[in-house]
Structures are given as C-alpha cells and as structure tokens.
C-alpha cells in the first residue's frame, strides 16, 4: 500500500505562500494556550529556540536533553557562521538569491516552498539574535561584518569569530532559561528519549530514560517536537559530538514516521585527517578558512612526501581553482570533497597516509599579514596546532573530508509535521531544506528558522485545528504508555542480559559499522558496494544480538546508552544502503559511480529521481517500503549544477 505524501504547500505565488499560511492558520485563544502542553526533545538551535518561543506564546513546554545542561547541545560546535539575505554589503544579495543558491546547492532535490520560507526568515533571525546580545563580529563603523561561504558569490555570512554556533546557541539557551525562570518551561536534563507514545493516532507523549538514575519515565503532552539533530555518528568517525545519535528520530520512525532521503549525507571537505585507530571523533576546520586558504596537492606523485614549502608554484595543482574557476576554493562542500578524494585516489595525496590535501595560507599571510589572519581564524589555527602539533602559520594545514551533517531525516510537510499527526521534526532531525547537499552556514539558519519562526505558527495551527480532541487530556496511565514503557524496559533488560555472555564491545561493533558505512556509503557509492554493505551490516546486527559484551548496571552507564544507540544506528545503516541503492542517479552528496558525466561530475536523472524518497519501517529484519514525494519546480528551472 502506498502512503499519500501531501507536502501541504500553501497556495499562491512562492513569495506569498508563507503569508498565505499565516493568514489562514487556526489560532488558539490566549486564555486557552496554557491548557496545552508541548514536549520539545533536544535543546540545540532548533529545540531551544522552539521551546522558548512556544513558551512565550503561553503553552506549557517540557524541554528534554541528554546532557546536564541545555547549553551543551552540539549546535554549540558550529564554527563558521550563519547565512542571511540582509544584503548589507550591497553586493547583489536578496531573498530570491539565497533561495536560489540553496536550491541549486542542494542539487535541485529540496522543496521550493520550504526553502523560500527559510530565505525569508533568515533576515529576522539576525535581528532576533542581536536583540539577545549575541556578539556578532563588527566593523569599526559598528555595523555587522560579513564573510563568504561556499556555493555563494555574495558575502551573506554573519559570524562570531570561529564560534558562531556557540554564540547563537547561548542566545537561544538564554531565552529558554528566561522562560524556565518564569515557570513556562520545565527542564528535563539527563534524559534520553526512547519512544513516542501514540494515542488514537496522535502523538501524545514520550518515554524517556534518566541517564543518571536509569529510571524510565512517561511524559504526556498535546504535541511533540523532535529537534534531536542528525545521524552522522553512524559513520563512527565524524565531526559530530560523542552523544549525537539517531535514537529519538529512529524510535519515531519505528512508530510509523517516514524517514526522508537517508542516503543524503554531507561529507565536509576540510577536516583534520584521521591519524590512528584509537580515534573516536574528527575535528572540522571551518569552511570560512577557504576565504583565504588555497587548496592544493603536488602535480607530481614523487613530490607528495616532500616538505611543501620546497615545492614551487609551477609544481602545485590548485585543483579547485583549476576545475572551478568562478567559485575556486569556495566550491560547495560535496564538490570540494569529491575533488579531494579524486586527487588522493590518483596518488597525489599528502601526509603519512596519503589521504590529505594542503590548505595553504602562505599567500594570504603574505598579502594581509599574519596578524590579520590570526584575527580572523586564530582559534581555528590554535585548534589545528593543538591536535596535530604543527604550526599552520608556518606550514600548510593538511585536511581531508569527513562526515559532518546529514541532509536526510524524518520526512515532514510544509508545517514540519511528520507523517505521525502531532509529531513535528525541526533542524537537522528533519529532511526538509537542503536537498542533496547543504551549503555552508545554512544549518544554523535552518535550525533557528524552524524554532523561532516556523513551529510557533505551525504547532499553534495543529493545536487549534484539533482543539476538541486535544482538550480531552491524555494521562500517562493510558494503556499506550504502558505498552511503550514495557517495550523500552524489555529492550534494555535484554541488552544487559545478553551483554553478560558476549565477547565484542559496543565500540568494536560500532567501529566496524562505521568502516562499512564510510567505505561503501561514503563519498562514492556503487551498486556492488551497497549490496555488500547490506550484507555486512546484517552480520554486524547479528553480532550485536548474540555477541555483545556489556558490563555495569542500568544506572549511569555510558556504554549502555551507546549500546542502545548502536542498535538503532545498525538499522539506520541498512536503510541508508537501501536508499542509496534505489537512487540510481548521482545528486549532491550522493555520488553513484555508475552515474557521472564524462569529466566525473555528478549526473542527475531528473526524469526518474526528482522526488523525495520516504521510507516506511516494516519491522526488524523486514524490508522497508519506499514511498515518493514528487518535487515540483514552478519557479526554478532544473539545470546542470555548474560552478565552473
């Protein structure tokens, strides 16, 4: 049976769709708002901004996070900046251009209406953040400063040194804490969400585990928002934080929420290369560095082990500038990553492993002075120095692509509602705005747009539309809570019990999963590789079920948390392989080796694949069902994405 996927795009011309939505939405009477409660899971940019904004409207909000504090969500680690179509530099930017760049950057695989709304909201976000006291970089004139990011020919990126995510998150967090102080938000820290509770076809609550005490808890509400981030940790090694995971959205998927485009993964071109098998985490070097750094490898293989400063310019291949002269070093991430892989595959990679390229600031330092470069990127250079023990002011950085962001996520309609009524997904947790490749500095924009400026309207519309039913409160003693809690308990008990007998640690199985996913569902994907990945993941699933070694108890036990997450990541990995296998075209970050142009660029197949793939869970070990949402382009002409 096919599921009808209605994106619910409002009528009218593109630029008026969001206004149309707002003009026709259902409202909730101010005095009635306090009768509704909303659960928001996750406190990153999307979650914190949604929770604060919904509470300001008058709803009772319950905010959940796995950390001790809402401020530690992984949005905090975003470095480079946030895009907005303010057009302060007077360089030709506009809402339309930001919309167009984002659609093109996503290789024409995102929904027009969502992306246009995102571009419209972008300018309000900057005003909002400034009003919170976010200390954005400024010029001597006192005005806000801008810089450029990949895939754009204008300077529309706002930033706070190399810590933009931190400052934006602390802004949203402070607004959230204001509402906690007022008693409008109740914080539930140290909780991981382990199930969504559905009552009469609507999301009415969640089951959580308190990670410090092990208690399993029930929480009821009238709507549930998941803002729990992406699933890049399926690769084991990524730039994502150790606690980032797929569990919340995966459990929702298991309950019936469709999963959109799981194979769309962003592999960021500029990360510090892998150095050893003990590593658990990779570190990003912000894309902003490509404003001044030049990417190159030696032209000749025999130069690869030489001291780079001894290699003259004529023997260097500034391959991004050569291949993409109009965007040069600021080519989008998917393209820059593939180009790096290509030169390394040719044997021209540098460093111990040969899996690295140079990011060189020699010319920028000569042009602008070391002091200026230090002012712009000091903290990033220090970070590089600490990790590699090498001084990037003296020698070029060595970088290599690494998993950074996932464009896929829970399928949502225009109102950010999943296929489960009353369950919304925001930020990286949904699939909505970036198509097959996200442009730099757009994740922060999307998270905050969803939280500050979309959900307050769309959740209200949902509550207003279903007022009669939702005002009949559901209590946590409802049978649906009983069964959900029992399932959660049984799964934890089973893991702890099985864990006494096995031999393989969580980390060992997890690392193996990461290796399979990286090699076969990474920067280049082939039919054969994807089929192998499915078989190998199935084997790892068996290892997990029968040979897992787990020690400790059900109280604070990071290893137990990790085991539960790994269980979900194994299923997700298999789904990613299936999605990549079915999508026989190349687009954005999804590169099928069978589908490329003669010069090695991604070859889209608009006739057969201009759609979102939305997957339906059919049970453990069962083949999931693939559904489609056709992407309709009324305003943008699908064309070959060129940065040449």
């Amino acid at each position: 049976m096919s599921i009808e996927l209605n994106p619910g795009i409002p009528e009218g011309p593109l630029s008026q769709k969001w206004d149309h939505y707002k003009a026709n939405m259902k409202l909730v009477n101010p005095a009635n708002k306090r009768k509704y409660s909303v659960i928001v899971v996750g406190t990153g940019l999307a979650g914190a901004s949604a929770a604060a904004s919904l509470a300001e409207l008058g709803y009772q909000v319950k905010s959940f996070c796995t950390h001790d504090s809402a401020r530690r969500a992984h949005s905090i680690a975003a470095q480079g900046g946030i895009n907005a179509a303010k057009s302060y530099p007077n360089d030709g930017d506009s809402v339309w251009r930001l919309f167009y760049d984002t659609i093109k950057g996503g290789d024409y695989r995102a929904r027009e209406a969502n992306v246009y709304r995102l571009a419209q909201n972008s300018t309000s976000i900057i005003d909002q953040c400034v009003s919170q006291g976010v200390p954005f970089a400024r010029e001597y004139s006192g005005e806000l400063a801008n810089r450029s990011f990949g895939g754009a020919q204008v300077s529309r990126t706002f930033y706070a040194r190399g810590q933009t995510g931190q400052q934006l998150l602390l802004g949203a967090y402070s607004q959230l804490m204001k509402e906690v102080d007022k008693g409008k938000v109740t914080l539930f820290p140290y909780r991981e969400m382990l199930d969504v509770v559905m009552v009469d076809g609507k999301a009415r609550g969640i089951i959580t585990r308190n990670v410090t005490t092990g208690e399993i808890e029930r929480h009821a509400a009238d709507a549930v928002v998941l803002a729990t981030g992406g699933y890049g940790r399926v690769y084991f090694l990524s730039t994502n934080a150790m606690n980032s995971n797929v569990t919340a959205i995966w459990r929702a998927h298991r309950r019936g929420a469709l999963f959109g485009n799981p194979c769309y993964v962003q592999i960021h071109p500029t990360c510090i290369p892998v150095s050893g098998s003990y590593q658990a985490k990779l570190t990003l070097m912000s894309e902003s560095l490509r404003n001044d750094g030049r990417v190159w490898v030696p032209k000749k293989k025999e130069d690869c082990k030489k001291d780079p400063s001894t290699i003259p310019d004529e023997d260097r291949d500034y391959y991004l500038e050569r291949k993409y002269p109009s965007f040069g070093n600021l080519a989008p991430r998917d393209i820059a990553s593939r180009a790096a892989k290509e030169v390394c595959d040719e044997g021209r990679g540098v460093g111990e492993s040969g899996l690295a390229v140079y990011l060189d600031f020699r010319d920028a330092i000569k042009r602008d002075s070391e002091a200026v470069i230090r002012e712009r990127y000091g903290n990033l250079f220090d970070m590089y120095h600490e990790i590699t023990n090498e001084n990037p002011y003296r020698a070029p950085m060595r970088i290599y692509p690494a998993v950074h962001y996932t464009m896929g996520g829970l399928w949502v309609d225009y109102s950010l509602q999943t296929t489960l009524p009353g369950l919304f997904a925001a930020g990286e947790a949904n699939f909505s705005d970036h198509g097959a490749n996200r442009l730099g500095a757009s994740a922060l924009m999307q998270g905050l747009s969803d939280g500050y400026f979309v959900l307050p309207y769309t959740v209200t519309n949902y509550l207003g539309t279903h007022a009669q039913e939702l005002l009949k409160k559901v209590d946590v003693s409802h049978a649906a809570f009983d069964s959900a809690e029992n399932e959660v308990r049984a799964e934890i008990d089973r893991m702890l019990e099985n864990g006494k007998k096995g031999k393989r640690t969580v980390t060992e199985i997890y690392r193996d999963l990461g290796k399979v996913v990286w090699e076969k569902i990474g920067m280049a994907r082939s039919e054969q590789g994807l089929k192998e990945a499915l078989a190998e993941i199935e084997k790892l699933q068996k290892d997990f079920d029968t040979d897992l070694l787990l020690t400790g108890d059900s109280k604070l036990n990071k290893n137990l948390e990790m085991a539960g997450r790994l269980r979900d990541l194994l299923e997700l990995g298999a789904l990613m392989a299936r999605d990549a296998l079915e999508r026989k075209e190349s687009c954005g970050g999804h590169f099928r080796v069978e589908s490329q142009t003669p010069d090695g660029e991604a070859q889209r197949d608009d006739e057969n694949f201009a759609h979102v793939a939305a997957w339906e869970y059919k049970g453990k070990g069962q083949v999931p069902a693939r559904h489609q949402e056709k992407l309709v382009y009324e305003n943008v002409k699908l064309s070959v994405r060129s940065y040449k």
Partner: protein
Amino acid sequence: MMSTSKSKTIHIRLRVWRQESRDAQGFFEEHELKNVLVDMSFLEMLDVLNEQIIKSGKRPLEYESDCREGICGTCSLMVQGQAHGPIRGATTCQLYMRSFVDGETITIEPWRAKAFPVVRDLVTDRRAFDRIQMAGGYTGAKTGPHADANAILIPKDLADRAMDAAACIGCGACVAACPNASASLFTSAKVTQLALLPQGQADRKRRVIRMVDQMDKEGFGSCSNLQECEAACPKKISIQNIAILKQEYLKAALAADFRAGMGSADGGA
C-alpha cells in the same frame, strides 16, 4: 616532511577516582597502560582504558565528553591536580598524551565543589550553573520582530570585549580550581557580556543582583582574588570580569529604587 613522532609511545600509570554514587565513599583505582601513543588525546587514552576495563568484566569508568573540540564544556577532569590538566587555555579533550612523560603516574579526579556533587566516578552534576543563568543571564528579548540588526551600532572594541566574555563554555573549571569553589568567573562573564552591550541595559541591575544571589544560594564560595580561575579557564576568561561584576553589583545594590521591586521573577526594574 613535518610528520609527527608517529610511533612514539609511553607507559603510564593511572590513579582514577571511582565513586559508585553521590553519597558513596570514593577511592582511587590504579591501572597501568602500555604503549600509549603520544599523539593520542587524553580522552582517547581513557577510551582505551575503558575497553580494557569492560573486557575484564568490570563496570566501565564514567567520564563525560561530547564535542571533543573544546567548545561544549562537557569534559571536566582534574588531571594531576589541575582543572583540565597541565595545558593552559585548553579543555580536557584538548589535552594530548605528548604532555606526559614515560613512566608518569597520572591522577584523575572529578571537579570537587559542594555545588557540583559527584554523580558517579568522574561525572559531576553542574546544574547549579543553569540555575545561575536562569536568574538573569538573558536580555529578555522575545521571539518576534526586532529593530534591524544594524539599527544600533556597536563599536567594534565593545563587541570584541563582549565576545571575550561570551566565550565562556560553562565547564566549571573556574570553580574546580578555586580554593573557595567560587563561581565568580562564570557569573561575571555573563554579567559583563550583557552589561557591555546596549541590548543588556534594561535589566542590567536586576540581572546582577539575582545572579549573585543565586550563586550564593547554590553554595559556591566567595572570590578572594586568588586568580586560580583565570589560570585554569580553557577560554582564558579574564578576572577583570570579576572586577566588573563587583562594580555592577555594588551599583545595583545601592540603587534603592531598584531594591524595592526585587520580589518576584516578573518584578524588578
């Protein structure tokens, strides 16, 4: 080639704090690790230790980390008696084994402060910081339309100073390093950031009074200008912020018109 000393390894002994729960008696557990690569991070070394512990069937060691790039403020270890270990301006996750010598015995403890109770082993409960933040660490701006971001010009040096203070990651090293377990550096960083910016002026007095009161209520000690906090701070937050905090507090406390309206969370200036 500027390759690092890839094959270099050291042998180390570890004294690690183990504590079952908040009220349980803690103790040091000893371990030995051989062939530790010096290019490994300190937390990766603990990951390796934990695999060893799990394989011996014992309960794994609990320690916190998340971003592992020095920005989330989750990692929080006393290493050789120093908050975040011997490297200045770095978090525990930014500490590498090249900072230790072959044969060294490394002592690892949790943050020790009354306001940060131990949850288990090396994990402490730092939610007291959230409650200080809750008491006024915000501007009061609501979601909605605001003046254009360039409507209020902010001189670059002011914005830069606000950013210096705003860089605090809330890790708690300042408290752990302070003999009084004072949270003055943490609190002052937020108070200073917002006191410097035009957006923070409306609740400026109420903010500082309430945040300082909350800090005292949580059981943090007073500041005696020992400067240990600044030395331990991974973001090099200056103690000048504490001077500003004291000044701000004094000014606010002396404003009699203001004191009267302090009652509820919604009251005030």
